[in-house]
Every structure is written in structure tokens, then in C-alpha cells.
């Protein structure tokens, strides 16, 4: 039983790490603030759930698991709030979101 839990937990932790990496990569590759925020949101939803879930499996039926579940719950409430504040600030400061397919420097008009 422990081996099953261990394997499951390692799968979750690894997948979480992969999502953090992809989120970071996306934050570098995306062209502007709003699109970068989409990439960053991978890390605070999927990655956070997978990593905290993986640690919860390691902790087992203890108080630590309840604390971790609470941390996850609060994280899922607060991270969109922070994103909304960031997006509102960007809009208020006059940064208009670009629309349409991505055009890079050097692309034909």
C-alpha cells in the first residue's frame, strides 16, 4: 500500500514540477503581459494542486495533511484575486491587450 502511495505521490510531484517548468518557459516565450499571465497561471493552479497533493500523500492521515489542504484552498482563493489585481492595474495604467494572431518581428505584414 505504501509503495502505491509513494508511486502516486512521485507521479504527482513530477507532473507538478513539469507544469512549473512549462509555466516558467511560457512566461519567457509569451509576447506581452496578459499572455504571460496565462502562462504563469499554470503554476498557480495545476502545479500547485499537483505538488501540494503529492506532499499530502507523503504526509498521510496526519494534521499536516489537513494543514496542506487548507493551504491549497486558500491558495486557490487568493491567487485569482492577485491575478485580477495585476490585470486591473495593467489596464488602468493604459496597457491595452493586443488581439489577433501573434505577429513576430520580421513576419510579413
Amino acid at each position, binding site marked *: 500500500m505504501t509503495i502505491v502511495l509513494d508511486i502516486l505521490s512521485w507521479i504527482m510531484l513530477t507532473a507538478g514540477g513539469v507544469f512549473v517548468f*512549462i509555466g516558467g518557459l511560457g512566461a519567457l516565450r*509569451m509576447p506581452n503581459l*496578459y499572455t504571460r499571465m496565462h502562462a504563469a*497561471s499554470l503554476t498557480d493552479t*495545476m502545479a500547485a494542486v499537483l505538488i501540494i497533493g503529492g506532499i499530502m500523500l507523503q504526509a498521510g492521515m496526519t494534521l499536516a495533511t489537513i494543514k496542506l489542504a487548507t493551504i491549497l484552498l486558500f491558495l486557490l482563493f487568493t491567487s485569482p484575486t492577485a491575478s485580477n489585481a495585476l490585470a*486591473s492595474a495593467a489596464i488602468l495604467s493604459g496597457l491595452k491587450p493586443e488581439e489577433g494572431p501573434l505577429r513576430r518581428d520580421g513576419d510579413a505584414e
Partner: protein
Amino acid sequence: MSTATRTVARMLALLIPLVAAWLLWSGLYKPLLLGLGVFSCVLTIYIKYRMDYFQTEVFALQFGRRLVAYWFWLSWEVVKSSLDVARIIVSPSLPISPRVMTIKASSKNPVDQATLANSITLTPGTLALDVYNNEIAVHALTEAGADELAKGEMDRRILALREK
């Protein structure tokens, strides 16, 4: 009850669970930690007071079977769109096509509108920009994501949370 007494009653209704949560979760009863606990509880109450939070209901979110069912549905949506966004990021051509749109929030309840906006932001690929006049401005990373949201499935499910 006068407004002042109601405000104080609501402050206490929030302060007591906050203090209890701090004591239970830290489990350490040293002066430094207790002091930090008092500080953060009082600071929370003060910030909430400045936000005019005590003029309205304190426990706005009603936890129930329906909300939990909604969370399960939302989790699955998050998984699906996370995979979509991850695929976009790792593909060399970076196939994005951002779009800004407004969607209607059918529920007039401010808590429901906040839930809708937060759900949109939580789902990778869509980002709530502003909530105004029962409409939510949304930034979507792809046309497909925008079209999916425009179907209004999320809005319908949030409206159903409060149905009797």
C-alpha cells in the same frame, strides 16, 4: 440592533474563528508566536473594516454540496485547459491568438460574480480583467478558449448554485 453594535458583533464573529485557527494551527504557545497571532488577527480585522466588509454579511460563501460539485467540475476544466495551454507553450510556433471579450454574469449576487471571475482566472487560458455592470471583461489566450467560454456553461453552473 444599531449599526455600531452590528459592526462589532460581525467583527467578533470573524475574530473568534481567526484566533481559534491561529492557536490550533500553530500549536506553539510561545509569546512571540502568540504576539504575531494577535497582530495578524487584528490587522485582518482592520483591513476588512477599511474595505467596508462589516456592512454586509460576514460569511458570504455558502459551503454546500452544490459548491463542492461545482469545484469538481471546475477542477476538470482546469485540467483540460492546463493541458491546452501547456501544449501551446511547448509548441515551437507558439500558436496564440489573444482575444478580449465580455461575457454576461447572469447572477446579480456580488459573491457569485466574484466566483465567476475567479473561476475564469483560475482556468489557464482565460483571465478576468474587470467586473462591471453584470458583465465580465475577459482576456482569452486563444480563439478556441474564448469560444468555449462564450458558450456560458460556467455562468449557468454558477447561477444554479443558489437555486432553491
